């Protein structure tokens, strides 16, 4: 008589768990109903001096070296403007997002130009398609390297000069996926795949996250070498909010 009782207890417990799961799930979709409004804008600053960015020697690829002859390029690990505005920081909602499960509809382009990735850092929604293009007169191999064993998987495709764009998509969140080209080892970039809206800081360090419904959120700012920072933010209805981040130079 003892055993069946145990089963029943486990069974009831499981049923309650599943019920709870279903209920929270359905609540989430109900909450997603009101159309998104408002947004979050702000700036990302760098405190201190940006680390020295090494010049890139592209002499092994004359076609690309020629492009940058007048303006030699450097690595882009930390790019800060004169007023301390920090570029290439992705700001996204890491907690509190319960909005639309549909991916963003725009299709951003990841271009290979002058043997550099343009943009150097790209934000993406989960399941948002993006295009990989090659504007160079040389071949590249596009080799994104998600965390081994993680939900996204590495792939590696050759894209000769003039080849048609490659359509690609990431199915899971990942902050961040390193992208490299094995033919040109100096090429380095990041794709930041998040759930929900995001903003990427521009030359002046400004970012904008659009289509955020009112609510309480945790924002996370990610920078490729300086790591992440978080802050809580409350969005009131019909009112845009601001948030600012400051990274300390290492």
């Amino acid at each position, binding site marked *: 008589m003892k055993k069946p009782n145990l089963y029943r207890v486990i069974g009831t417990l499981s*049923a309650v768990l599943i019920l709870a799961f279903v209920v929270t799930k359905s609540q989430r979709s109900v909450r997603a109903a009101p159309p998104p409004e408002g947004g979050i804008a702000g700036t990302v600053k760098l405190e201190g001096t940006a680390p020295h960015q090494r010049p890139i020697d592209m002499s092994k690829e004359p*076609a690309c070296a020629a492009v940058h002859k007048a303006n030699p390029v450097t690595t882009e690990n930390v790019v800060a403007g004169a007023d301390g505005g920090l570029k290439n920081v992705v700001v996204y909602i890491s907690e509190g997002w319960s909005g639309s499960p549909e991916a963003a509809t725009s299709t951003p382009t990841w271009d290979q130009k002058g043997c550099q990735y343009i943009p150097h850092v790209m934000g993406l929604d989960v399941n948002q398609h993006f295009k990989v293009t090659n504007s160079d007169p040389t071949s590249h191999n596009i080799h994104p390297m998600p965390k081994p064993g993680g939900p996204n998987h590495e792939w*590696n*495709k*050759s894209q000769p*000069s*003039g*080849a048609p764009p490659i359509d690609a998509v990431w199915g899971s969140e990942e902050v961040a996926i390193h992208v490299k080209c094995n033919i040109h*080892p100096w090429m380095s970039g990041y794709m930041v795949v998040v759930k929900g809206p995001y903003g990427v800081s521009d030359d002046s360090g400004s970012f904008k996250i659009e289509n955020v419904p009112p609510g309480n959120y945790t924002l996370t700012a990610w920078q490729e070498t300086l790591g992440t920072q978080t802050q809580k933010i409350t969005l009131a209805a019909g009112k845009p909010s601001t948030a600012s981040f400051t990274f300390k130079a290492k």
Partner: protein
Amino acid sequence: MRTQQVNSLACAVAVLAICSLSSAQLTKDQEDTNLGMEAHVGKLTGHAKDAAMNYRRYCAGCHGDLGDGEGENAVWLDPKPRNFTLATFKCRSTPSGSLPTDEDLYETVGRGLESSNMPSWNPLSNQSRADLVAYVKHFSERWKTEKPGAPIEIPVQPAVTADRVKSGQALFQKLECWKCHGVEGRANGPSADTLTDDQNRPIKPFNFHDQTRFKCGETDRDLYRIFMTGLDGTPMPSFADNVKPDEAWDLVFYLRTLQPMHTQEKEIAKQLGLKPINTNAPAPANAPAPQPQSNENKPQ
């Protein structure tokens, strides 16, 4: 009363299954359920649970009991034994980024991997090897949630002609194989010294003059498959998007002229007086255009 108990039990099992999917680390229970993994190779069905003893005896020394590539011999080996928990495989018939088919893994186990410490396991019975494939698969959850990619199609091999060898050489230049493999295929291209694998370990490109066999086989079809699917986890990309299936055979024929053994292609190259490519000159006019040419492609 009885059905109620069965229902409760089914419920409990469902919850356990949901919980187990969410954790990345294999628990003992999960390990046991994963041992139900099967592999299908032709008419054979491999069962992971039947391979445990063979795996311990023949594989664990290098690949480790947990399949993480950290067996006790691993420190002495280069290239390192495969980490099965990551489910990334070099030798596939499927597109880059997808899982290999069971046949792909079965072939690898039987053939062994050239230039590595992985020997051929053909001495084991077909059934044992199919069981081992299932065992290899049981180390990663990826096999439960994902299907292998669709194998690339390989058209019937055409006859070797002088034109095809020449067109293959033009492709070798156009696709810039030489950036790593070198203008003569001697693994001394400008990027050769900088290559690393997905674990950031140095890795060398294939030297065509060194060997008759490739990492993933030795036949013309194997060679075709290698560059069309790429070798995941290494710098070797997939060329399937930009080489037409028929043209790919031309590249196979050209690559055969570089290898040490006597081949029909080599004879043709000799008769043609084929010279190594000149990377300072644009690709010859008969270079196949795999895609619309952009103006930027014109020589300066």
